[in-house]
């Protein structure tokens, strides 16, 4: 593909996404409908599969609003003087192509909420599990902190809590001795809201993250995935991640 064609394609995507910018609010509204459709006391359904589409062409280099919003929502604090040991549910990755125009891109990386999660396969206690709606979680009541799942995850998405915690969000229990990762802000999803990172990305004006139900053919995310080229990170592993990237 020539450079001109590439630019043309990118400009087309940017333009089409720009046009969809207003419509991008619609999945939020849809999300509310779905959540309200679930009566109190009703279990999550396998009819829904939560997923995310990240447009790397809109993700701004140097912006870490998603990471900050995640830390605020889930009360993730840096460890006491040991940053390598502090929990990381979402991180920003900066990529640079070595050849050609040295194209740079930036993207958030977090738990990919795989349909075939290796962390669940290796868990010896059943603590690592996939909820019916596709969200991969750790049941800390059962987790023994063996960290096999951290070894198994090809995305390095999981963290181990090394130190006692005291400032947890009451809705997000976390503690020493357990493995944890991005939950898609499950406490917010159960209230009918989307993840905190997606909300922050929208507020920053980038709108690089789109969250919704992959199984809903009328939903914004399913429409976008069926119309624009998106890719799975390490698609060769056939894990069928729920987080898709556009423009990588």
């Amino acid at each position, binding site marked *: 593909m020539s450079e001109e064609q590439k630019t043309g394609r990118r400009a087309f995507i940017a333009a089409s996404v720009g046009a969809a910018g207003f419509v991008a609010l619609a999945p939020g509204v849809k999300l509310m409908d779905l959540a309200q459709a679930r009566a*109190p*006391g*009703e*279990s*999550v359904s396998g009819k829904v599969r939560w997923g995310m589409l990240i447009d790397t062409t809109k993700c701004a280099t140097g912006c870490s609003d998603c990471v900050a919003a995640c830390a605020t929502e889930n009360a993730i604090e840096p460890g006491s003087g040991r940053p390598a040991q502090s929990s990381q549910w979402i991180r920003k990755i900066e990529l640079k192509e070595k050849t050609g125009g040295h194209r740079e891109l930036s993207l958030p990386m977090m738990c990919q909420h795989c349909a075939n999660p290796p962390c669940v396969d290796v868990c010896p206690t059943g603590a690592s*599990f996939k*909820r*019916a*709606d596709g969200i991969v*979680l750790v*049941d*800390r*009541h059962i987790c023994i902190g063996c960290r096999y799942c951290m070894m198994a995850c090809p995305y390095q998405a999981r963290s181990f809590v090394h130190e*006692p*915690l*005291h*400032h*947890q*969000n*009451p*809705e997000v*229990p*976390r*503690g*020493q*001795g*357990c493995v944890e990762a991005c939950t898609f802000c*499950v*406490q917010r*999803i*159960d*209230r009918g809201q989307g993840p905190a990172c997606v909300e922050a990305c929208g507020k920053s004006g980038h709108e690089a993250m789109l969250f919704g139900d992959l199984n809903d053919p009328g939903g914004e995310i399913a429409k976008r995935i069926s119309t624009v080229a998106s890719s799975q990170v390490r698609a060769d592993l056939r894990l069928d991640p729920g987080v898709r990237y556009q423009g990588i």
Partner: protein
Amino acid sequence: MLRHAGLAFAAFVAFIVFALPAVALAGVPKPVIDIANPGQCIASPEVMRRTHMDMLLHQRDKTMHEGQRGGKVDLNGCIDCHASKSNGSVLGSNQNFCQSCHAYAAVKIDCFECHQPKPGKARIAGIKP
């Protein structure tokens, strides 16, 4: 000799049956519980004392695996109502709601190694737990 031993045993049994409960009623200290909001709980105190752990165990699986939140049994609901007005927590001293009985009965309380022992309202209001 054997007869004396028998008598002594009978006296001992009589002591256990009649005297000890009296001592227990009169002299053994009971836990002192700081009840922040006296009123109606989700069940009677007798039921709650005996079965709160089973209720929470059942509910935790419902919430964790099936996403059912905000029902009748809800640990955050317990904390919102039972947190002491002095330090805003269910833990802290042997008068605080959860800690009082657990210290009295010498039962380790693991919930708060992960769960926040202070109500969400305090957090929303910006009070650092």
